[in-house]
C-alpha cells in the first residue's frame, strides 16, 4: 500500500525546500580567461551576473579595444546553491583574439537587470609578444559519431570536459548544443568518466553523451557549452579508471567548445514505400506473434512485434496503425511496438498487413519491413437458438427454437430471378404463337386448293411427270428400250391429263397430239409422239418389233416432254 501523505503535507514539503534568493543585491564579475595571452591567441571574456538570464538586458555590442577581434559568443544560466538558498547565475562569454601586444581593458559598463542597474566591472587582459608560461583557455571538446548524415538520422555527440588542473575531474551541468537545425534528445543522456584522447593526449575526462537528430538539410555548424560543477554529478554516471575529484564548493564556469560542422543530406524521394515513419538506421523484425488465432467479433487480441536495430532505439517510431474496415487497430503506447487488434466482423480471415519501412543510410535505400497478415478465425456473436416457453398464447404461436438442418438440398431452381424477368422465357412464349400461325396458314392453303382443284391436278401432274422423267433417265442409262417406251408414253399421258381433265391411263395418242399446235403435231414432235405410242401399243402385238432403234428416240422424247410441260 503506498504511504499516505498527512494533511497539508504538500505545503510542508514546499516550505522545507531552500528558498530562492531574490532579495540580495545583484552582483557581477568580469574577467578574461586566461588573463595573459600571446597576440593572436584565443582568450574568453566571461561575465557572471547573479540573476536570471531573462531578467538581464544585455547589450548587443560591448565597448572593447579596437585590437580585440571577437569570435563566437554564448550565454548560459545555472542555479547555484549558496548556503541555504538558491541563486541564479548567468554567464556571458565571448571569444576574443587580441591582435597586438599590450595591456587592454574592457571598461566597466552598466546593464539593466530586473529594472535595476547593475555595474559590470572592468576586466583587463595582458597580451604579450611571447610567453612560455601562458596556459591555453579551458574549453570543452565536442565529438560527433558521424559528419555526413541523412536528414532525421540520429547520431551520437560527445561533450568532453578534460581533467583540469592536476587531473581533477569536474562535473558538467546544463550542457547544451548551440546551433540551428538540430534536435537534441536529452532523455538519452549518458554520463561517464573515462580516459579519452584529447588533442592527441590520453587524459581522464568527464563525458556527456547525447543523441542528436538533424532536422534541416545542408551544412550545419554547432558547438557545445556547459557549466563546470565541481562534484555535483547529476544522474547516473559510469566511472572507468582512477578519478580525482576536486574538494570544496563547486565553481560554476561556463565553458564552450570549438564548433563542429556536419553535412546533412536530404532523404531520397524515390523508392520510398508506404509505412515510413522516419526510422533511419538498420532494423530487424522478429516474426509477429498473435495472442490467439481464434477469436470472437469485438474481442481484442494482441499482436506482438519486436524490432531490433543497430544503435540507439529510443527514437524509433513504430509503424502507424493502418485503417481497416474489418479491424480496429490500436498501437500499443511507446516504447512498445505491438498492436491491439479488434475484429469488427467474422467475415475476415486474416489480420491486416501493417506497412512499415525504414531507411538504411549505409545503402541509401528504403527497406521494406511490413508486418505480414496472419491467418485467423473470427467467430461471430452467436444469437439465441432457443427461447423460453411463453405463457402468452399469442407468443406461443411462434416456434421456440431453431429448426434442425435440412438433410437434402431439396427443391432446386436454376436461378432465384423469376422467369418473367428472364429474356429466354419471352422467347419461349413465342413458340405457341408460331404454332398457331402455322396452323392458320395451313388452313388457308387447304381452303385455296379446295376452291381451285385444277391447280392441285397440275401440281400432282408435275410431281408425277418429274418421277416419270427420272425413271426415263434410268431406262436410257440401263439401255432398256421397252421401259423407255413405256415411261415415255406414261409421261406424255400424265403431262396432258390435267387439260381434259382425265385420268392419265384413260388417254391415248390422239389426246396427246390434240394438246400440240399444228406445227408441232405435223412436225417432228408429232412424229415422235406417234412413234412412242405405236411402240407402246406394239407390246400387245403377236410379234413385237425389234427395239433396237427406240433408244435413239430419247432426245426427241425429251423435247416432246419439255413442250408438254410448258403447257402444263
Amino acid at each position, binding site marked *: 500500500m503506498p504511504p499516505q501523505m498527512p494533511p497539508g503535507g504538500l505545503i510542508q514539503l514546499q516550505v522545507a525546500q531552500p528558498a530562492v534568493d531574490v532579495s540580495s543585491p545583484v552582483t557581477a564579475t568580469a574577467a578574461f580567461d586566461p588573463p595573459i595571452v600571446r597576440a593572436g591567441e584565443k582568450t574568453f571574456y566571461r561575465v557572471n551576473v547573479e540573476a536570471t538570464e531573462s531578467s538581464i538586458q544585455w547589450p548587443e555590442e560591448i565597448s572593447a579595444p579596437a585590437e580585440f577581434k571577437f569570435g563566437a559568443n554564448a550565454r548560459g544560466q545555472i542555479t547555484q546553491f549558496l548556503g541555504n538558498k538558491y541563486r541564479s547565475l548567468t554567464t556571458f562569454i565571448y571569444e576574443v583574439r587580441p591582435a597586438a601586444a599590450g595591456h587592454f581593458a574592457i571598461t566597466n559598463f552598466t546593464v539593466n537587470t530586473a529594472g535595476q542597474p547593475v555595474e559590470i566591472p572592468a576586466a583587463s587582459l595582458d597580451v604579450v609578444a611571447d610567453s612560455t608560461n601562458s596556459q591555453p583557455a579551458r574549453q570543452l571538446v565536442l565529438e560527433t559519431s558521424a559528419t555526413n548524415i541523412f536528414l532525421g538520422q540520429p547520431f551520437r555527440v560527445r561533450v568532453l570536459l578534460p581533467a583540469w588542473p592536476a587531473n581533477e575531474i569536474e562535473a558538467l551541468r546544463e550542457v547544451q548544443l548551440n546551433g540551428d537545425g538540430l534536435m537534441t534528445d536529452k532523455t538519452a543522456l549518458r554520463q561517464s568518466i573515462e580516459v579519452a584522447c584529447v588533442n592527441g593526449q590520453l587524459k581522464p575526462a568527464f563525458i556527456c553523451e547525447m543523441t542528436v537528430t538533424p532536422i534541416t538539410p545542408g551544412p550545419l555548424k554547432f558547438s557545445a557549452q556547459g557549466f563546470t560543477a565541481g562534484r555535483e554529478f547529476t544522474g547516473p554516471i559510469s566511472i572507468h579508471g582512477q578519478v580525482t575529484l576536486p574538494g570544496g564548493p563547486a565553481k560554476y564556469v561556463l565553458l564552450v567548445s570549438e564548433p563542429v560542422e556536419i553535412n546533412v543530406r536530404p532523404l531520397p524521394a524515390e523508392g520510398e514505400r508506404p509505412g515510413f515513419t522516419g526510422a533511419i538506421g538498420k532494423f530487424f523484425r522478429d516474426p509477429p506473434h498473435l495472442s490467439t488465432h481464434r477469436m470472437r467479433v469485438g474481442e481484442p487480441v494482441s499482436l506482438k512485434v519486436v524490432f531490433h536495430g543497430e544503435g540507439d532505439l529510443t527514437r524509433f517510431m513504430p509503424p502507424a496503425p493502418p485503417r481497416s474496415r474489418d479491424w480496429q487497430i490500436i498501437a500499443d503506447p511507446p516504447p512498445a511496438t505491438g498492436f491491439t487488434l479488434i475484429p469488427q466482423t*467474422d467475415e475476415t480471415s486474416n489480420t491486416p498487413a501493417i506497412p512499415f519501412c525504414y531507411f538504411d543510410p549505409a545503402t541509401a535505400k528504403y527497406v521494406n519491413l511490413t508486418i505480414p497478415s496472419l491467418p485467423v478465425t473470427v467467430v461471430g456473436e452467436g444469437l439465441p437458438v432457443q*427461447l423460453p416457453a411463453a405463457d402468452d398464447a399469442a407468443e406461443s404461436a411462434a416456434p421456440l427454437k431453431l429448426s434442425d438442418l435440412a438433410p437434402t438440398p431439396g427443391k*432446386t*431452381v436454376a*436461378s*432465384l430471378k423469376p422467369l418473367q*424477368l428472364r429474356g429466354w422465357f419471352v422467347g419461349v412464349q413465342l413458340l*405457341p404463337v408460331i404454332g398457331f400461325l402455322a*396452323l392458320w396458314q395451313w388452313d388457308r392453303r387447304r381452303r385455296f386448293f379446295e376452291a381451285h382443284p385444277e391447280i392441285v391436278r397440275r401440281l400432282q401432274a408435275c410431281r408425277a411427270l418429274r418421277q416419270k422423267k427420272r425413271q426415263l433417265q434410268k431406262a436410257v442409262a440401263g439401255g432398256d428400250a421397252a421401259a423407255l417406251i413405256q415411261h415415255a408414253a406414261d409421261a406424255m399421258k400424265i403431262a396432258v391429263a390435267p387439260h381434259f381433265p382425265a385420268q392419265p391411263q384413260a388417254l391415248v395418242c390422239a389426246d396427246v397430239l390434240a394438246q400440240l399446235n399444228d406445227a408441232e403435231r405435223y412436225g417432228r414432235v408429232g412424229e415422235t409422239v406417234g412413234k412412242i405410242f405405236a411402240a407402246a401399243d406394239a407390246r400387245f402385238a403377236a410379234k413385237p418389233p425389234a427395239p433396237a432403234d427406240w433408244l435413239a428416240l430419247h432426245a426427241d422424247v425429251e423435247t416432246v416432254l419439255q413442250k408438254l410441260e410448258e403447257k402444263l
Partner: protein
Amino acid sequence: MKLRHFIFLASLFCVIENSRAAENKFFAQGVEAYRAGQFPEAAMAFEQSAQISPAAGTLVNLGIAQWQRGHAGAAILAWEQARWIDPFDSRASANLKFARQVAQVDPPQLKWFETASTWLPPNAWVWLAGASLWLAVGALVLPGIFRRRKSGWHQTLASLAGGFFIFSLTASLGVVSRAQTGFVVKKNAPLRLTPTRDSEVVSTLTAGEPARRLRVGGNYFFIRTAGGAGWVVRDEFKLLGGE
C-alpha cells in the same frame, strides 16, 4: 449428324451431373462443418452450394449457419429465399417466425396480389399463365382449324382457362413486384439521404428489416422501409430474387 447430337447431349449431361456433384459436395461439407461447430465455414459451403444451384434446403441450412454466426439479416434473407423457391418449406417458415421474434423485426408488408403470389413457387405462376392463355386460345381457335364443331365444353374450357390466365397473370405481377423486396443484411446499416459516402444518415436499419428497392444509383439502392426512404449501400441490402 446423329453422332454430333449424341456428343452434345452427352456433354450437356456431364456438365449437369458435374454441377450437381459439386453442389452436393459443398452441401455435405457445409453439414459437416456445421456439426463441427465451424459456422463460418459451414455458411461458406452452403453459400457456394446455393450459388451453383439455389435449393430450398441449402438456403435453410445457410440461414441456420448464418444465425449461429450472429448474422440475423443474412439468415432471414436465406430463409425468405428458401420460401421463395418452395413456399411449402416448413423449416424456412418456422425459422423465419422464430428469427423475427428474436430480432424484433416485421415481415414485409405485401399487397394482395403479392400475397397471392406466395401460394405457389414464382415460376409456377408464369408457366400457369402461359399454359392457360394458350389453352384458352386453342379452345377457341383449334376447333375451327380442324373443322370440328364447336361444342359447349370448348367454350367452358376457354372461359375457365381465360379466367385462370387473368388470375395467374396477376400473381405473376405479384412475383415481379415481390422480387424487388429485400432485406438488410448488415447490423445497424445506415440509411442515407443521398447516395454518397459522406451523406447525412437518416436512420439506422436493423438487420433483417424488410424494404422495397425503388431505384439504383451507383453502388447504392434507394429503398423504402416501414420507417422511411433513403439510400443504402448495395452490400448491406440484398434482394429476395437476386440482382
